[in-house]
């Protein structure tokens, strides 16, 4: 009965209650969306940290961590490998060689780490092969010798990536019905080659009007992008015998992940190709990267097991290898509720105010209820429930709308490419797929009830201070 009265009381002043409900709805939608966005970013960062950059655990020579010298390979590699292989809780693993090298083309140079990989194993542990860009070749699906997959960033540094206007680009612009004056400006650039995206777009867009630049600038820049596949890169590095050596590779693929720093540092070659020049023996590997079957074990448990067996090897989890991603994953759960808490704290002032008005309008009725035998405990309960219903109504609608928005944006993704360079510089994706766990909504319900209870204290105290006889005299 009290529950029913409390619910009906919410709708006494429909206009006022609806204002509060709309405010709570908007606050909840905003909170759910921001939390979903943060979760999307965090999940994508953690996923990239594990499946692109580090794997669950990595076994290395402890000396290699202090000094990335080619000779610091894993000690007793064969035994370590056999042990890892025998662990049923390890899902997949791969061994890699790593060489820090100076890369040079006829137009540029940069330092990268060459990772010698076994293609079949690598695909089981890392998803780097999925990041080959459009028109950026393939992940070693070529038949020329010494193929290499480099990042878009490295391609830019080595000037393998250029921007140029070709006849094909002009044809594309025509088919896309780009205005003739824009096409004729583009035609003036035919035959010229730019090595920087910024220089190309600045030069080209300076000849367009602002609205044309906004509309067609990024489209033309994207179409003008060209990767010179099969370009030759010469790498200079120290081999296993401490001698300077060099080896040339031809670009077969360009990848781009959401982490520019990772991209700038890593290039992938076949282990067999790198072995020839570096002079690796059959058991010379710098790291074993492994994925743990998380349903059966944890990365921490595997780390302990391997460390115990091979004290001369360094075993690190992705949490230790990429601590920023681990920290984000850890604080994110608390962070959502901080966001929601701040939103609901602000809303609570409005809710308290509304409830106080509702109580002031009903003083005579509350006096009557106490006179005919309603205990103060029940009066308190009635007001508290009314406040909870008021808050919960808005937040349930807000959660439904928020979930719908997350469902849609989680499917389409949110493109922050215009400011994406900044995000990617710190390892966050420019295209985010917001998502949230169902448990978060359960948490919101608990939070809403808590806010309802706290917001009802002041109005309920006001009601409980009333003396029935005095309240009944109120007009």
């Amino acid at each position, binding site marked *: *009965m009290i529950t*029913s*009265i409390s619910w*009906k*009381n919410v*709708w*006494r002043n429909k206009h006022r209650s609806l204002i509060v409900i709309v405010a709570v709805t908007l606050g909840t939608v905003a909170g759910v969306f921001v939390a979903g966005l943060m979760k999307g970013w965090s999940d994508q960062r953690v996923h990239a940290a594990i499946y692109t950059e580090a794997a669950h655990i990595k076994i290395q020579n402890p000396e290699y961590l202090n000094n990335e010298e080619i000779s610091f390979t894993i000690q007793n590699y064969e035994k370590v490998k056999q042990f890892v292989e025998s662990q049923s809780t390890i899902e997949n693993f791969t061994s890699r060689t790593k060489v820090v090298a100076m890369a040079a083309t006829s137009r540029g140079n940069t330092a990268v780490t060459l990772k010698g990989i076994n293609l079949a194993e690598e695909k089981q542990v890392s998803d780097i092969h999925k990041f080959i860009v459009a028109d950026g070749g393939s992940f070693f699906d070529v038949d020329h010798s010494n193929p290499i997959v480099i990042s878009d960033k490295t391609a830019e540094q080595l000037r393998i990536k250029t921007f140029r206007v070709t006849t094909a680009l002009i044809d594309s612009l025509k088919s896309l019905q780009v205005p003739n004056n824009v096409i004729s400006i583009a035609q003036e650039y035919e035959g010229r080659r730019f090595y920087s995206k910024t220089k190309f777009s600045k030069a080209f867009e300076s000849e367009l009007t602002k609205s044309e630049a906004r509309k067609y600038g990024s489209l033309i820049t994207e179409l003008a992008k060209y990767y010179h596949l099969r370009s030759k890169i010469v790498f200079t590095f120290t081999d296993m015998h401490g001698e300077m050596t060099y080896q040339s590779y031809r670009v077969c693929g360009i990848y781009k992940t959401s982490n520019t720093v990772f991209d700038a540092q890593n290039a992938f070659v076949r282990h067999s190709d790198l072995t020839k020049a570096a002079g690796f023996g059959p058991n010379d590997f710098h790291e074993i990267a492994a994925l743990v079957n998380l349903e059966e074990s944890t990365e921490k448990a595997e780390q302990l097991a391997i460390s115990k067996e091979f004290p001369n090897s360094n075993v690190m989890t992705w949490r230790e290898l990429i601590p920023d991603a681990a920290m984000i994953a850890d604080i994110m759960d608390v962070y959502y509720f901080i966001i929601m808490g701040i939103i609901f704290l602000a809303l609570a002032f409005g809710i308290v105010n509304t409830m106080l008005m509702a109580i002031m309008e009903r003083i*005579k*009725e509350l006096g*009557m*209820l*106490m*006179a*005919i*035998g*309603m*205990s*103060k*405990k*029940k009066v308190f309960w009635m007001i508290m429930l009314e406040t909870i219903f008021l808050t919960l109504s808005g937040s349930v609608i807000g959660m439904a709308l928020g979930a719908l928005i997350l469902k849609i944006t989680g499917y389409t993704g949110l493109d922050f490419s215009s400011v994406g360079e900044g995000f990617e510089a710190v390892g966050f994706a420019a295209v985010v797929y917001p998502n949230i766990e169902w448990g978060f909504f359960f948490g919101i319900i608990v939070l809403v009830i808590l806010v309802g209870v706290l917001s009802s204290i002041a109005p309920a105290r006001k009601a409980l201070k009333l003396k*029935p*006889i005095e309240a*009944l005299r109120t007009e």
Partner: protein
Amino acid sequence: MKVIQIKDLHKTYSESEVEVHAVNGVTLDFAEGEFAAIVGPSGSGKTTLLNMIGGLDDPTSGDVKVGGTNMSDLKGEALTDFRLNNIGFVFQSYNLIPVLTAKENTEFVMRLQGKTTQECERRTIELLQAVGLGERINARPSKSSGGQQQRVAVARALASKPKFVLADEPTANLDSKSTETLLDIMEKLNKEENITFVFSTHDARVVKKARRVITIEDGKIISDVRKNGGE
């Protein structure tokens, strides 16, 4: 059997250093099944007397005993509980809960008493039929006339099966026809259920119906007339 026993009851208010004796030494009894009216001019102390009988106001001195229980001994939740189970109230301005229907308003006190749904249902229908609102059990106060609302208030007052009903100016806001109907209903319930009714009123029509008329002036009883003879 005496339902209410009042002995030397006083209520004094202090207003700007002047003491006002709203009730000044009232001694009075009400027996089971009485249909009594307390009359007197405005400010004579009849509402204050009714409030003290109902445990809504504390006397300055004196005792009010209801069914042997001294009201002064009850405080807080115990007093609220006592009112719930022993006293029915009818107010001048009906004081129904606007968001509830006639049925819900009537069964409200029974719900507070913790009665079962079937019990509530049965008695509510019975009472609403008795007050002539059997066809309007789902009507909200805003859709009902003043007379109909006051009849729901009477049904609510009787729902908890109280020892007596206190009605403060129950007909003050009603027209003649509604007053007549309401008084007939209360008289019928008084006779059929043997429930004591005590009114405070100015209304001559109520005085005419009452079987006992107590006149109060300046907080003192100046006459106590029983219509079947005797004073």
